């Protein structure tokens, strides 16, 4: 049997109607029957009371004059009352004095009991005193069966049941007709809802039949459908627009990406060129410096040669040639000649010293020229062997970088402290490291310069671990405020008015390209700064 809440509205309405009608009828009928029974009992009690009074009056004399037959004659009148099945009269001592039994009945005679009415299971009994001249002379007992009451109750129940059936039938018919008023619109609404949810067709509308709650419900439903339709349209429009916008955006993004790639390539190129320019500048500086030394050395040699005592030697030679004959005399007597033996060793010593000076100077000259040659070849090497890794000692790279900045460092009286705790050899693209280092050293120099300190210094510290090498450039310059530490490697960030914010950015990029990193540390303004390059130590090639 389906559950009540799952049955249709139509069924529910009919059921509710039937149930209400049935309950009302059962309640009414039940209370009517109960009242009937109650009043019947009261009536019966009253009737029996009256009867017993009459019998009592009738039989009082018989009792007084010991005439049971007369008393029985009085009792016989009860035969007109079919519901009385037995009656008797007790005398004063409680003995049965006279009795009456309805034909066919087999009653049981109770013991004398106090006057009153007694409802037993199947009978109703009355004990009534017989009073004569205020003297109780006996008791009347009447016993009535309840068959009539039961029959009457049964008739009522039957009638009630019949009425209930007929009423339920009528109620059912009426409910079946009237429920359409309510279930009709609901069923229609349900059907419409079904169509809407099945076909996703929001164009149809439910038809309103009245202006009651159902009518309002249908109005609300239709309103909802309209809203859904409108929203669907909006959604579709938004979706179309979004697609278009996504397409556009994708296109522009693609363009952007392409543009960025191009830019990046250009940047790398610029960076490389910038690095090379950096190197070239360093090279030129150094060459210039060395050329100074070369010039000095050349001047010294020229001066030395110009004031050479070689002339004295040729003069002595001429004198000796002139006095070839009297050479001994000349050497002993002549005032001039006698000085020659003493003079010659001195001259020789002077010439040796002179030669030594020149030789030294030439040596230096040669060295400087070699240096120039070296610098030029270094430049050539950096320029030529781009992207080729070479095996190199770190300290050499650092020294190269220092050399490229040597002029500026000297000019600004910056003390350079070399702290090479380790000096590993590594295989690396030299020019990239050099480019970073040159840039870092120049930055350090600027930082020191700006601090106007009297003790400007740069520490270059090389430390190595098993698989990496650290090159730290530590200055005691102006330092870096904390808020700048994070963006110091960003492209275009600079604190110098003539800076382009490119050096550190390309440095960091280069370090990354080498598989390492570039880090900065500063305790704040005026506290100096340290930049550390970390590079992985690749397997060393055999020399």
């Amino acid at each position, binding site marked *: 049997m389906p559950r009540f809440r799952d049955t249709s509205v139509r069924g529910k309405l009919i059921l509710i109607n039937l149930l209400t009608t049935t309950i009302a009828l059962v309640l009414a009928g039940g209370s009517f029957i109960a009242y009937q029974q109650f009043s019947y009992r009261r009536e019966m009690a009253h009737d029996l009371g009256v009867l017993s009074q009459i019998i009592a009056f009738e039989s009082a004399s018989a009792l007084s004059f010991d005439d049971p037959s007369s008393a029985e004659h009085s009792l016989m009148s009860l035969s007109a009352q079919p519901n009385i099945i037995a009656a008797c009269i007790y005398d004063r001592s409680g003995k049965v004095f006279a009795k009456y039994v309805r034909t066919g009945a087999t009653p049981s005679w109770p013991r004398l009991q106090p006057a009153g009415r007694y409802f037993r299971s199947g009978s109703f009994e009355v004990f009534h005193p017989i009073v004569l*001249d205020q003297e109780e002379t006996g008791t009347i007992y009447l016993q009535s069966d309840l068959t009539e009451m039961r029959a009457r109750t049964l008739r009522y129940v039957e009638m009630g049941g019949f009425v209930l059936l007929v009423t339920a039938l009528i109620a059912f018919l009426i409910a079946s007709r009237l429920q359409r008023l309510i279930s009709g619109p609901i069923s229609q609404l349900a059907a419409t809802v079904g169509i809407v949810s099945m076909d996703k067709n929001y164009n149809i509308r439910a038809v309103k039949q009245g202006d009651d709650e159902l009518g309002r419900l249908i109005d609300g439903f239709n309103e909802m459908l309209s809203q859904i339709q409108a929203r669907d349209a909006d959604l579709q429009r938004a979706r179309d627009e979004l697609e278009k916008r996504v397409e556009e955006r994708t296109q522009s993004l693609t363009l952007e990406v392409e543009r960025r790639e191009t830019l990046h390539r250009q940047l790398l190129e610029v960076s490389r060129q910038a690095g090379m320019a950096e190197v070239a500048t360093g090279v030129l500086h150094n060459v210039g410096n060395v050329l100074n030394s070369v010039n000095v050395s050349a001047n010294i040699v020229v001066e030395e040669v110009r004031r050479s005592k070689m002339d004295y030697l040729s003069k002595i030679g001429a004198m000796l040639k002139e006095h070839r004959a009297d050479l001994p005399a000349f050497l002993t007597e002549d005032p001039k000649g006698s000085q020659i033996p003493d003079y010659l060793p001195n001259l020789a010593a002077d010439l040796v010293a002179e030669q030594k000076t020149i030789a030294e100077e030439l040596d230096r000259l040669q060295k400087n020229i070699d240096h120039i040659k070296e610098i030029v070849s270094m430049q050539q090497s950096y320029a030529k062997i781009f992207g080729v890794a070479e095996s190199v000692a770190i300290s050499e790279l650092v020294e190269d970088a220092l050399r490229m900045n040597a002029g500026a460092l000297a000019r600004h009286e910056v003390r350079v402290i070399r702290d090479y705790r380790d000096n590993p050899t590594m295989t690396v693209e030299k020019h990239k490291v050099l480019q970073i280092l040159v840039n870092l050293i120049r930055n350090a120099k600027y930082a020191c310069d700006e601090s106007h300190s009297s003790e400007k210094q740069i520490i270059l510290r090389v430390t190595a671990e098993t698989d990496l090498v650290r090159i730290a450039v530590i200055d005691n310059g102006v330092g870096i405020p904390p808020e700048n530490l994070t963006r110091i490697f960003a492209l275009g960030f600079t604190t110098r008015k003539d800076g382009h914010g490119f050096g550190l950015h390309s440095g960091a990029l280069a370090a990354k390209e080498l598989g390492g990193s570039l880090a900065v540390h500063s305790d704040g303004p005026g506290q100096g700064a340290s930049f550390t390059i970390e590079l992985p130590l690749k397997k060393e090639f055999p020399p």
Partner: protein
Amino acid sequence: MTRIIPRILAMGLATLFLGWPDLSLAQADITREQALKAAFLYNFTKFVEWPPERFPDPQSPIVIALFKEGPVKAELERITQGRKVGGRPIAVKLVQSAAQAASAHILFIGNDEEGLLSKDQIENLHRAGVLTVGANQDFAALGWLITFVLEGDKMRFQINLYAAEHANLKISAQLLKLATTATNKR
């Protein structure tokens, strides 16, 4: 103490069995017939109505007269002791003459006393409003108002309606229906 309780009990029992005007034999020296007659005499007062002039005042007793002492009188005295009928006490009197009996309400004459009163005297008594009760059927012919009749072992009575009317007495239908015969003869 211990003796008092049984005595009280005995008295109570005696009252219970002997004190009531029931039909049981009250005394050893009284026959059942005599006892019944005494009880009937008492009960007649309940079903008979005398004319009001027979009573000087509302408390005047109903007088039952007898010519002789005997068990019936004794029994009657016993059962009417302290009882009232219609608010009146009952007095049992011994009379010597018809004139004396005229002041009574009921006159009872025993079995062997039928010759004491003549028919005229009886009529006079009736005229005076006396309910005359004869001890046996023999009195009926003499015109007595009520006469006892023995039917087997049952005590019954006859009523002379003529006499009753003559005596100006109202006899209850309840009493009449118990009478074996109710004659209307002189």
